[in-house]
């Protein structure tokens, strides 16, 4: 049973436009959410995170929105750039997360020139 779901395996967006990546979760104990970006043959790199006490967190071109009642979060990238082409993983944890992160399957974002 997947506790973190990314239902879009891939997403194609034109350069300069907004990219919106979605993530749903089922475990109401999750209280911290993270987005990781992954290039081929590299490890995931941290992008942005949000605590469950917030509904928005912004860092430059990246904004994460959290809707707790819907158990849904989204990552917005504005404007999208060619270097943003990668696989994006949504991850969640409860408490301090000492026992690891729960990951979605990832969304492959392709930025078209």
């Amino acid at each position: 049973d997947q506790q973190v779901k990314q239902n879009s395996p891939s997403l194609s967006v034109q350069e300069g436009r907004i990219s919106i990546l979605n993530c749903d979760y089922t475990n109401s104990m999750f209280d911290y959410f993270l987005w990781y970006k992954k290039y081929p043959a590299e490890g995931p790199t941290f992008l942005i995170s949000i605590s469950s006490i917030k509904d928005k967190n912004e860092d430059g071109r990246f904004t994460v929105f959290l809707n707790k009642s819907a158990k849904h979060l989204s990552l917005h990238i504005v404007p999208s750039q060619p270097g943003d082409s990668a696989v994006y993983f949504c991850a969640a944890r409860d408490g301090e997360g000492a026992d690891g992160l729960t990951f979605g399957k990832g969304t492959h974002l392709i930025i078209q020139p």
Partner: protein
Amino acid sequence: NAGVTQTPKFRILKIGQSMTLQCTQDMNHNYMYWYRQDPGMGLKLIYYSVGAGITDKGEVPNGYNVSRSTTEDFPLRLELAAPSQTSVYFCASQQGKETQYFGPGTRLLVL
């Protein structure tokens, strides 16, 4: 800081062989993790450790063993390699409630 390093980068094993995947971090993090990623899937937790001498099973521990004798090192042992263990393995470390940092991965092929 080198961060989290993993060796080897790539390895081919025959069924039944054993090997150890190495992981080292130089950030003095207490928490360390091993994940595997199969094609088209997210990362799944194999084992984790909250400090030297303490290890615990994750979601998919069967066929693996770990040890944590120092803060820096967290090796993952495969005793009898099986084709189902063909995957990419990622090691990660974390300090308290901070972000989890990942190594570059080890690609393992079992034939």
